[in-house]
């Protein structure tokens, strides 16, 4: 089908406008992070920083707050919850999809409920427990509600439905133990689903703010999102530092995006299954 030249131009112009809208905040963040406090208060605004070699804002971020520690905390929490969630939800998906037992659908429904129940509806008792069992300001406390996602269970059940039962039966006849069958035969079959969940779970955990805000108080236990917020507590908002800190918080995710771009597109499209 041939396209008229005017249609083509229209598509390019619209695409360009949207691309600018989407990328501008990133660009402005990076540019501002190289500006000195004097520069950001200069009117009229100079678009580019005077010098891209000015890294003083980044140094200041690290001096002011243990920002590397924040990043390390976020990495730890996100990786752990990601791995844990994959293991537990893959097992659950397998059990729900390929076995029959009493109350199966009830259990599944029980887990699916939490697609709708907002986290805020469990946060008060969770917080009270955390205080009671001294889990505030600990990694255990931080990671506890992020460990298994109900969406993950749902997604893995969908994934397991595609695995042919004959494959599992054949493995059983060959005398493979149940766990061995699951680990060696079934898991490789749902690789794309596992990758999808890994990406989504990591992104969600990295960007999580509400729970870490509630549960952490000590500086060395803060995650990146809460650490970022701590730059706003001052009387005067220091955007040269905030933008530098924001750049640092985004870099790991952008690297991940660059590596897994295709997987991320697929992951988002698949998360549309949630219907």
């Amino acid at each position, binding site marked *: 089908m041939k*396209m008229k030249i005017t249609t*083509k131009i229209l*598509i*390019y112009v*619209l*695409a360009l406008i*949207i*691309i600018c809208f*989407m*990328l*501008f*905040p990133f660009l*402005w*963040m990076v540019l501002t992070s190289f500006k000195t406090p004097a520069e*950001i208060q200069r009117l009229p605004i100079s678009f580019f920083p005077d010098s891209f070699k000015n890294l003083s804002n980044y140094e200041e971020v690290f001096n002011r707050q243990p920002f590397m520690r924040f990043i390390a905390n976020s990495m730890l929490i996100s990786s752990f919850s990601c791995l844990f969630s994959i293991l*537990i*939800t893959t*097992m*659950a998906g397998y*059990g*729900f999809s390929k076995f029959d037992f*009493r109350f199966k659908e009830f*259990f599944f429904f*029980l*887990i699916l*409920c939490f697609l*709708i*129940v*907002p986290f*805020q*509806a*469990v*946060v*008060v*008792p969770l*917080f009270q*427990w955390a205080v009671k069992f001294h889990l505030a300001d600990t990694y255990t406390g931080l990671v506890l*509600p992020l460990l298994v996602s*109900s969406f993950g269970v749902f997604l893995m059940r969908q994934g397991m439905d595609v695995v042919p039962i004959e494959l599992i039966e054949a493995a059983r006849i060959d005398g493979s133990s149940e766990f061995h069958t699951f680990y060696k035969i079934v898991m490789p079959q749902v690789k794309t689903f596992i990758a999808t969940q890994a990406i989504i779970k990591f*992104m969600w955990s990295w*960007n999580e*703010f*509400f729970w870490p805000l509630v549960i952490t108080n000590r500086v060395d236990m803060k995650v990146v*999102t809460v650490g*970022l*917020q701590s730059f*706003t507590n001052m009387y005067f908002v220091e955007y040269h530092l*905030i*933008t530098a800190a*924001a750049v640092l918080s*985004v870099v790991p*995710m*952008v690297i*991940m995006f660059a590596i897994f771009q295709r997987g*991320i597109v697929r992951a*988002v*499209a698949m*998360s*549309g299954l949630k*219907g």
Partner: protein
Amino acid sequence: MRKRTYNSRKGLIGFLFVFPAVLYFLVVYTYPFIQTFLLSFFTEHRGVSSFVGLENYKEVLTDSLFWKSLINTAYLTLISVPITIVLALLVAVLLDKSPSILVRNTLQIASLLPMMMSLVAASLIFQWIFDPVYGILNELLVKFGMKKQPFFSSPTQVIPSVAIITIWIRVGFSATILLAGLQSIPTHYYEAALIDGASPVKSFFKITLPLLNSQIVLVCISEIIFAVKAFDQVFITTGGGPANSSRVIVLHLYETAFKWFDYNEASTIAILLFVLLMIISIFQWVFMRKKVEY
């Protein structure tokens, strides 16, 4: 007889596979949820809690601050959701139709990149762009002969400003889902429409939109839920101000629980929020069942 023992053994194995997940959800989610529900019927005074029936609900539902937060939440949802959907639809169509692969790929990356950023970081950046004095947006407005705007520090502009953050973060997500839907529409429908002399605009409204129905409903509901649960954007930029004009429901809940330490009232608000989200989800379920067939 032998078959049955085998089945119960198999059932047990299946149960063992789901057991960790079930246990986790029972302990970390179901139990606290029930506790929240119970908390909403009690009140605490000097460490002694007593049953008060629906008293907390009465109190919350007559609290003007609660209604203010609810109205602000509704306002935010009403602005951000339609714009997100229309923009996402536009992006999806552009991705589908773009004759150049370079433009297509750039648009896809650009629309998904915001998803990589936390709402916290995005809010801080937008607050800087929208700064009343040194913000680049105001500089642009002045260049085009308009007045500087206060944005986040104005009671009337704060919710639309928060909505822009929400839209920016969400467009890529919705566009990707809609694109998957667009690509599943068989091309022969369009060819038939072309032969019948239908204009592209007409075939968009008569073929594309109806066949995209389930994806659009899905995206609408996801976006509504996301907007109703908005917290980070507001907490970071304004903390609910100025004069509570951006206080949203989750922020109200957060402050009730962790600033005023009224756990019972916070639990009541949480249950009401849950009911609201449940109603929205039931809507989704009803609409999703309406399948369009040609």
